[in-house]
């Protein structure tokens, strides 16, 4: 029972944070387009994007659920590991460069105010693209993580909750969204995906981890230590804080 609770907690946390990382950009795009070009077409585009994402999650989830758990853990674990390492490296780089800063709202020439008659298809396409492109990575994480942990329901709940929370914040107090430390969240999610990817892929081969599931915490500690060490080393070298460098 404890293991199940811990599993649900990890799955909810990982999918919630991963979705938050992408939802920040998603909401920034949608609110930016809506504020400059009007809300009707923008919200229609965003809603269509969410429908596409829901179909992707359902089809992808059903397909993966049909694979036996052993090969699934090896294949999905390896994919999560490779994919998670991308976010891990980007997170280290960006946190080293920007600390806990948020993102700047994008400015696009396409987002000029719409004054013409009829439906604004440009706003529709911009919002649709923003939701689908930013949401695809979330769908990938939610489905692979959820199916492999045998907890697709909580994974979807974690993903949807993040989008709802960030959207609510974006609708109420838009500037706050851009101040959420996205780089740090990306690093946290990259670390968790790398941790679970390592655990599942190696377990999928048939290797027995020492201490069983507790090895997940040891892997997490190893990767957190690696990230913290690399960030501090890179900041020292790049910004001249090296104690052994002559003034």
């Amino acid at each position, binding site marked *: 029972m404890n293991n199940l609770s811990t599993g649900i907690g990890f799955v909810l946390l990982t999918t919630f944070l991963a979705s938050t990382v992408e939802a920040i950009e998603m909401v920034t795009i949608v609110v930016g387009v809506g504020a400059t070009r009007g809300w009707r077409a923008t919200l229609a585009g965003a809603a269509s994007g969410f429908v596409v994402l829901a179909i992707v999650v359902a089809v992808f989830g059903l397909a993966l659920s049909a694979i036996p758990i052993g090969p699934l853990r*090896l294949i999905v674990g*390896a*994919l999560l*590991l*490779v*994919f998670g*390492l*991308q976010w*891990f*490296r980007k997170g*280290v*780089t*960006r946190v*080293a*460069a*920007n600390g806990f*800063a948020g*993102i*700047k709202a994008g400015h696009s020439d396409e987002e000029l105010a719409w004054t013409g008659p009829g439906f604004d298809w440009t706003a529709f396409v911009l919002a649709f693209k923003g939701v689908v492109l930013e949401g*695809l*990575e979330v769908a*990938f994480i939610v489905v692979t993580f959820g199916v492999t942990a045998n907890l697709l329901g909580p994974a979807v709940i974690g993903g949807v909750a993040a989008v709802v929370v960030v959207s609510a914040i974006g609708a109420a107090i838009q500037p706050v969204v851009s101040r959420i430390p996205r780089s740090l969240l990306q690093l946290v999610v990259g670390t968790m995906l*790398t941790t679970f990817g*390592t655990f599942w*892929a*190696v377990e999928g*081969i*048939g*290797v*027995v*981890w*020492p201490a069983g599931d507790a*090895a997940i915490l040891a*892997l997490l500690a*190893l*990767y957190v230590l*690696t990230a913290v060490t*690399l960030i501090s080393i*890179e*900041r020292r*070298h*790049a*910004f001249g804080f090296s104690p052994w460098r002559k003034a």
Partner: protein
Amino acid sequence: MKPIWSSVVAFGSFWYRFIVGDDWTVAAAVVFGLLATAFLNARAVAAWWLVPVLVVVMVVVSLRRASPHRNFLREAQEEKK
């Protein structure tokens, strides 16, 4: 035939960039690590430590190779601007 082939290439290229990203050597190292772990495990050698160690080494190598003079921090700041 040509448009179909270019669509297939574009589809494959999308998934490659999506999963593997900008450094294929990290993905190659992961595959190598898993194959080596399977090889050692089949011979009853404890190999659970191999992939975690390889991951740490590859992250360090990848970051260093991408930015031999640590310009990546300034590039990341420029990208943010």
